[in-house]
């Protein structure tokens, strides 16, 4: 079978800046900030007290309470984003089409809050009191399974776990499933809910998080000289992918085309990126090669841009390595500057942003970029959105463990 083209015909998000995709994108364009003091648990004893929380999330309209109480928060986010995405795709699938409809919804760390709570039950009340729904609530593949149950998807369901690269990993694999004829429809992205005591303590103690507790809205500052770590965010972002001719045939709204997916591994360190950036460059290059275009054709990058000292400098090196002089003319931005780092969901949400950016020609700002860092010498769309028609855009995600993933999207002409 010849490779097939892949269309993005649905988008869905649940984010600290809302679950309405249009409104979410407008808020990003206007530089709204969602980072606040954590109020879901008492942070008195914690060195980090800030996050990009989703306030007042209500799954009530979407799921029966009998079922929602068996879902960890990450799963609830993933399910709601998927329902919204599928509605956005406005597609009716018959039974035979559902057999070629798959779901790849990843979570970087899964149901950590459920896990932590049941460990306490185990210690305080003994093994006979551990919840019988603990396992199916906690396991990180259950998000994909719950989406499949809800939407009737009978093709592949899977859950890549590649830390902060998870969402992009999921979308890239889903893209290939359709491109190479293994499925016709895919729902793909990531979901994460790690703003809980055990996860915040863990990330804080590895010194990955910003400690600018007194100025939450200033804490996530990708590519700024005074960045001091990332801010945890939560939520979900998913795409509905469809074989191109089918999408055209039903006159679907096509947000963008996915044309490349590149992966590489640093094989270097459990948390630090390989400092030369050559393997991050490698994954971007592989995505570009798959699309058979030249590096000069790429004029927009939704960066991983976490606001950690190591990531932003290394990602900049990687972009300079791959693109050479052309790097300076690329429009780069970091969605994380406003909503924080959604970990395994980041790539999902940022893929949605990449598609909407190419479609609208509007590039949201990287906020809080106030003091330039000599190691970050590119155009990061500092503080003000810009309008620019870009034909090709990359979305980068790099995960602890050295997992590098990039997808390449093309504007619909």
């Amino acid at each position, binding site marked *: 079978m010849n490779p097939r083209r892949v269309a993005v015909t649905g988008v869905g998000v649940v984010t600290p800046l809302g679950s309405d995709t249009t409104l979410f994108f407008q808020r990003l364009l206007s530089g709204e900030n969602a980072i606040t003091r954590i109020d879901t648990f008492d942070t008195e004893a914690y060195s980090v007290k800030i996050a990009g929380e989703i306030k007042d999330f209500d799954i009530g309209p979407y799921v029966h309470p*009998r079922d*929602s109480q068996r879902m960890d928060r990450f799963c609830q986010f993933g399910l709601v984003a998927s329902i919204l995405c599928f509605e956005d795709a406005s597609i009716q699938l018959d039974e035979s089409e559902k057999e070629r409809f798959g779901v790849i919804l990843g979570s970087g760390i899964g149901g950590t809050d459920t896990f932590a709570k049941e460990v306490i039950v185990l210690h305080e009340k003994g093994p006979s009191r551990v919840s019988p729904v603990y396992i199916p609530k906690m396991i990180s593949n259950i998000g994909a399974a719950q989406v499949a149950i809800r939407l009737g998807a009978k093709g592949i369901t899977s859950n890549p776990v590649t830390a902060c690269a998870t969402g992009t990993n999921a979308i890239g694999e889903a893209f290939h499933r359709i491109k190479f004829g293994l499925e016709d429809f895919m729902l793909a992205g990531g979901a994460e809910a790690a703003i809980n005591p055990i996860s915040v303590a863990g990330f804080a103690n590895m010194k990955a998080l910003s400690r600018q507790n007194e100025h939450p809205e200033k804490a996530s500052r990708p590519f700024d000289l005074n960045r001091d770590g990332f801010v945890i965010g939560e939520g979900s972002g998913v795409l509905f992918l469809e074989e191109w001719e089918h999408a055209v045939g039903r006159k679907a709204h096509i947000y963008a085309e996915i044309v490349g997916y590149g992966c590489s591994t640093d094989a270097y360190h459990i948390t630090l990126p390989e400092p030369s950036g050559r393997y991050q460059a490698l994954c971007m290059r592989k995505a570009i090669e798959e699309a058979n275009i030249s590096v000069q054709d790429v004029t927009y990058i939704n960066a991983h841009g976490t606001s950690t000292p190591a990531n932003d400098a290394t990602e900049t090196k990687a972009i300079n390595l791959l693109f050479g002089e052309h790097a300076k003319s690329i429009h780069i931005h970091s969605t994380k500057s406003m909503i924080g780092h959604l970990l395994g969901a980041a790539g999902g949400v940022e893929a949605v942003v990449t598609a909407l950016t190419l479609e609208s020609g509007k590039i949201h700002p990287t906020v809080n970029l106030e003091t330039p860092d000599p190691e970050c010498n590119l155009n990061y769309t500092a503080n003000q959105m810009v309008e620019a028609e870009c034909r090709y855009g990359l979305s980068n995600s790099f995960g602890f463990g050295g997992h590098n993933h990039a997808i390449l999207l093309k504007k619909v002409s």
Partner: protein
Amino acid sequence: MNTKEILEKAKPIIADKLGINEDEVLESKHFINDLGADSLALVDIIMSLEEVFSMEIPEEDSEKIQTVGQMVEYIANHVK
């Protein structure tokens, strides 16, 4: 504790686990056929009731409990 008191105490727990109104929790109702429970939910309900009534319900007994009435009666006969 009589069966009426037990039912009143059990109602909110059963209703919460199944996401239904307390007034739907009647002795005649079958957990799976009438109230939308599955086998996992039934285990979950029994574990919660064990805790509330400070008792252990052995598996060979809990497997026979199918209705709200059977549950209430079992608790009435075994609670200390």
